[in-house]
């Protein structure tokens, strides 16, 4: 089975023998994975198989206990908390499975956050955030508090925030699990749109129709890669 990127492409993400265990539970065992520019990779597996843990490790939110992670050319083992934060606000987009908006900030400011943290002016960041919200159909909710959004709306706001920096790689954990088919399709099209400019998308899902949108499927089972297949 030929998987992985073609040799002329430098991978955006490379996991090599990554293992991680929480207090009692081994969550990842010797996982290796490569993501090339312009690629959509679906990570699937049953509940508790380690998908979210894989995302946290790959995006630099969690240090694995063993193995190496190369993200956008950085060996994450040697990147400190500050540099990772800079990475998050400038070069990667993250959509988590559950709540991720700052409850005290209005939706617009939440979406603008990566830009404001990265030093752009409030006004410029808010203008960009308004555009991003329009893309996900949330213009009306701009001034609402996150608690006033439905689960699906909050997820769309998170997608808008993840895409606002034009990231080179996007990690999305069940981004459409709480959306209806039509809204889900819209969000997925937006997320997949990043590949047009050579960015990659790592899509975590348990929905086969969503997984079928990817170029490659990586299936986890009890923390290890059970099966990997090119769908292209």
């Amino acid at each position, binding site marked *: 089975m030929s998987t992985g990127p073609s040799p002329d492409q430098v991978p955006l993400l490379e996991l090599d023998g990554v293992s991680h265990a929480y207090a009692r539970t081994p969550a990842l065992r010797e996982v290796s994975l490569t993501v090339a520019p312009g690629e959509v990779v679906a990570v699937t597996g049953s509940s508790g198989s380690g998908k979210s843990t894989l995302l946290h490790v790959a995006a630099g939110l969690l240090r694995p206990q063993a193995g190496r992670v190369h993200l956008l050319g950085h060996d994450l083992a040697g990147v400190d908390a500050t540099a990772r934060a800079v990475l998050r606000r400038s070069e990667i987009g993250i959509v988590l499975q559950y709540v991720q908006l700052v409850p005290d900030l209005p939706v617009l400011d939440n979406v603008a956050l990566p830009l404001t943290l990265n030093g752009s002016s409030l006004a410029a960041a808010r203008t960009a955030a308004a555009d991003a919200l329009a893309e996900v159909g949330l213009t009306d909710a701009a001034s609402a508090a996150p608690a006033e959004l439905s689960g699906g709306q909050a997820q769309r706001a998170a997608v808008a925030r993840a895409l606002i920096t034009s990231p080179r790689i996007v990690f999305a954990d069940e981004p459409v699990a709480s959306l209806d088919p039509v809204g889900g*399709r819209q969000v997925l099209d937006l997320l997949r749109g990043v590949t047009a400019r050579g960015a990659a998308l790592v899509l975590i899902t348990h929905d*086969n*129709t969503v997984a*079928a*949108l990817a170029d490659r*499927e990586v299936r986890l089972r009890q923390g290890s890669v059970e099966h990997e*297949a090119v*769908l292209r």
Partner: protein
Amino acid sequence: MSMAEIHLALLLAGPRHGYDLKHAHDAWFPEERPLAFGQVYATLARLVRDGLAEAVDTRSEGGPERTLYAVTDAGRERLLAWLATPAPPAGVAGEDVVRKTVVALHSAAAGADAAAVLSGQRTAHLKRMRELQRSTPPAPGSASGLAEHLARRHALLHLDADLRWLDEAVEALRTSAAHDLATHSTPPATAPDDSPQAHHAPTQHSEESTR
């Protein structure tokens, strides 16, 4: 049509005559229409003609004369090749997926790897589902476009149902494999009822065996 390969798989267990084959087939696929005897003999004749099966014996134990058939090496190869090719993800014709999986489960003796069959099938299905989702939804007002779109959605969702069934099958395969392991690890010589090991058997095991 997969009838030839199913007959080959049915013959894997050992030489059989047509009457046995029919009943074995009906037991494998309880949800399908029972095989007609005529079809069994027609298929066997074709298999013999193609060198995939052979008649090994003819017996008449008091009753009518019966011919025993066995699978040839060529037949075995043909079966494995068929298993290695995923069933066409055909939307509504999901039975083929079921057939292939059931046959794979029964053909471990011939070297078939049911897990690999299932995983290959999953990939084939996902590829087809990807194609089905390639085209953009129709412009509003185009009746033919809408019909086409809806037909594709129908196919997509049926393939999704197949995939869920495949996931279940994988899971079942694993638990049964774990079960087999547990069964084989207990010494076969001791009677299961009064042996001391019976008390230490994993609960999953004992539940399975009472079912």
